[in-house]
């Protein structure tokens, strides 16, 4: 476990050093209070409940209303340094199976009631042991939890089935907002349509498709914060309009990221008024292949679809026009558990000889009786980077005789489509809030264990490998198991297709201070440390 953490620290360093940063955030001067932060969110929230959702469209406008037990340090560029939040300290038992958190006193919900361990337990019970009819997108991440106890109002204890090197990071998940226990007791789905937390801002309004407004929580437990009087999150799907909003200084920032061309446009137009922060991005676009639809139940067809992709050419070309860059396996390139390039090339669809790959794809399709295959690709209605990726994918598949039609589904509706299995192939993504195999791989466990497995398969071997890598004694053994997991997921069974790794570019108004980019666009969205310079 110690070695695991050491490697995690190395990953942190790698992620911090790797990206080229044009200019860092200017945050040395003294924070100034006041002002309304206006920012752009490229998607609306499907619901208000982060426990069930997995889109930034929920995190970006709604995270300021909530707290988590732990958080990642908002000043840490690597996004893996765990810091206190509603839990002010923690201890881990010698056997690594018991985590005891001491909770902060004097924290109030926005309705004036006091936060206690009862609320923390109820929130985590909802995430880890959701009752029937309640979707928990991250249930699979917490399958190691045996029990959650609240022995007193300010102590919360997690008992694990076995030690887990990633558990502390899991408790800092930006998705695990703490809800009020009494409300959950009455209606477990209340938070899907209502907002009420302990966060630095209180909810004012949400006009669907237009904006969210929040105002400063005067009774916030972290005295002196937030610095802002309030915020306004404008929902703006079109990237040209987003750029125009930042360019005209109607909005200060769009936290998710812009394309290289958009960055250049803003830098050229605003000069010193713009600050650019860049980072590797722990995000990849996947293609979910519905195993419940024929002929995608045939692994030969799935393999043909991955073999058709010229990832290296795609990386070179698309990185010029979209927010994607590296060819990767199941881990961010350059991090300790990432597949070495030579090994990666052995996986189906990762070989350098594209003609050979495509010949094999055609042979497999013929063997499976799926020549002249026609499919519909349901794509998330967020233009960047989903649209350019779709063009690239469809063109690559066409080269092996697979005719694919794209159907764009509104971002707020795509999860209903994915969860309902109403698709043949669809865009999906794996975005982790921190780089760690446990967190990055749980999505690929069998559908019975994980609601976010949109390829809808059951693979006990994969589940077993997931468990084993999480409990591996040493780093080398864990690496071996992660490789084995990756080989089964992407090569032998081809349950999912990995396309390209994202690359995060956030050009923002130089007045925005106290916000640091990380490899995850889910982090640092509470806005409690953000302030506006004169």
């Amino acid at each position: 476990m110690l070695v695991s953490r050491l490697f995690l620290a190395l990953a942190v360093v790698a992620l911090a050093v790797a990206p080229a940063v044009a200019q860092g955030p200017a945050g040395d001067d003294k924070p100034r209070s006041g002002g309304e932060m206006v920012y752009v969110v490229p998607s609306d929230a499907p619901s208000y409940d982060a426990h069930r959702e997995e889109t930034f469209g929920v995190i970006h406008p709604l995270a300021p209303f909530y707290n988590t037990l732990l958080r990642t340090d908002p000043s840490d560029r690597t996004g893996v340094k765990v810091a206190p939040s509603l839990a002010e300290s923690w201890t881990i038992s010698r056997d690594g199976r018991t985590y005891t958190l001491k909770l902060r006193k004097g924290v109030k919900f926005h309705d004036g009631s006091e936060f206690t361990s009862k609320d923390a337990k109820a929130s985590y019970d909802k995430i880890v042991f959701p009752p029937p009819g309640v979707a928990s997108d991250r249930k699979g991440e917490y399958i190691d939890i045996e029990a959650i106890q609240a022995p007193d109002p300010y102590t919360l204890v997690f008992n694990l089935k076995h030690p887990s090197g990633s558990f502390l990071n899991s408790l800092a998940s930006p998705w695990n907002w703490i809800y009020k226990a009494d409300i959950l007791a009455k209606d477990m789905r209340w938070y899907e349509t209502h907002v009420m937390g302990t966060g630095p801002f209180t909810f004012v309004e949400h006009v669907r498709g237009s904006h969210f407004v929040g105002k400063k929580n005067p009774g916030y437990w972290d005295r002196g914060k937030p610095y802002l009087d309030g915020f306004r999150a404008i929902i703006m799907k079109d990237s040209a309009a987003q750029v125009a909003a930042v360019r005209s200084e109607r909005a200060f920032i769009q936290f998710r990221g812009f394309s290289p061309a958009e960055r250049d446009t803003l830098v050229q137009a605003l000069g010193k008024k713009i600050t650019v922060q860049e980072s590797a991005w722990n995000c990849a676009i996947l293609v979910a292949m519905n195993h419940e639809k024929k002929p995608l139940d045939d692994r030969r067809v799935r393999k043909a679809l991955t073999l058709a992709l010229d990832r290296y050419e795609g990386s070179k070309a698309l990185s010029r026009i979209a927010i994607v860059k590296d060819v990767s396996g199941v881990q961010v390139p350059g991090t300790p558990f990432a597949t070495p390039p030579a090994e990666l090339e052995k996986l189906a669809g990762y070989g350098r000889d594209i003609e050979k790959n495509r010949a094999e794809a055609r042979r497999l399709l013929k063997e499976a009786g799926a020549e002249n295959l026609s499919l519909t690709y349901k794509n998330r209605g967020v233009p960047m980077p989903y649209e350019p990726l779709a063009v690239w994918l469809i063109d690559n598949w066409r080269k092996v005789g697979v005719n694919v039609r794209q159907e764009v589904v509104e971002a707020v509706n795509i999860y209903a489509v994915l969860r309902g299995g109403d698709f043949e192939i669809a865009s999906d993504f794996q975005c982790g809030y921190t780089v760690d195999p446990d967190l990055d791989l749980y999505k690929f466990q069998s559908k019975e264990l994980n609601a976010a497995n949109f390829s809808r398969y059951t693979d006990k071997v994969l589940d077993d490998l997931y468990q084993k890598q999480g409990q591996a004694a040493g780093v080398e053994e864990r690496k071996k198991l992660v490789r084995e997991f990756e080989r089964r997921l992407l090569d032998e069974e081809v349950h999912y297709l990995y396309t390209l790794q994202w690359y995060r570019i956030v050009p923002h108004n130089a007045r925005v201070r106290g916000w640091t980019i990380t490899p995850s666009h889910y982090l640092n969205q509470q806005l409690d440390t953000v302030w506006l310079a004169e």
Partner: protein
Amino acid sequence: MALDRPLEDVVALADLTPERSVKDGVVDFVRHRPLGAIGAAVVLLNILAGVFAGVLAPYDPVATDYAAMLSRPSLAHWLGTDAFGRDVLSRILYGARTAMLVGFAVALVGATVGAVIGVTSAYFGGRIDLAIQRVMDIFLSFPLIILALAMVSILGTGLVNVIVAIMIPLIPRASLVTRSSALAIREMPYVDAARAAGYRHRRIILRHMLPNVMAPYLIMLTAFLGQAILLEASLSFLGLGVAEPTPAWGLMLRGAAVQFAETAPWMAVFPGLAISLAVFAFNLFGDSLRDALDPRLRTQ
């Protein structure tokens, strides 16, 4: 005789000038309405471009060529390439196919359904007319683009859905125009005669009244063609129309065309020109056609 051969009689009633050949009519149209003739020629060119795109286009419109991405206009690519290295000229030619397909499908079906509803409404009159017209009024109270957006959000994106989404808001407009013409025709003696002869309503509407609203119908048809092309382009530009990689003019204006508007303006300029030219041509042709078919204007 009027009851057995109504169409011929109607033509005879409507046009008392001696019968002329189609060729004479075309020559007359070109001579007296040169702008309309230019419009018709551009429309014809668009149709031919769409039909023969497979022969005319120098490249496959969906084939990417990353070595040639964002190339400026040259001998190899007359109108340059887009962000995926796709030939802009080829995509415009194939885009004409999408535009014409949407335009003609929407205009033909929309104007025809609208005309049938309008004539039926006028023929029956009374409560039926009142009910139909109030429903039409509801649709007419929304701007076209808003109604089309609403329809797309209900039906979803894709070529067929876009055709339906644009067609539905146009039906009430067609209905309104044909109804006003049909109200006058309803009072004509030959309609009374048809009723007296015991013909069924369907036969009277379809064989005796509809052919007599042909002039406004044709004018609407040409007007709808331009509107439908513009609406399809607008919806595609908003990401609600046809989806990539289908070549469509509106689609060519979005995404990378906006991102690279300053460094690769050809990506937006040429499809924009194609849309403008097509809509302008349909409007010119439609206006001239109206002038030619409207007896009041024709005598001037």
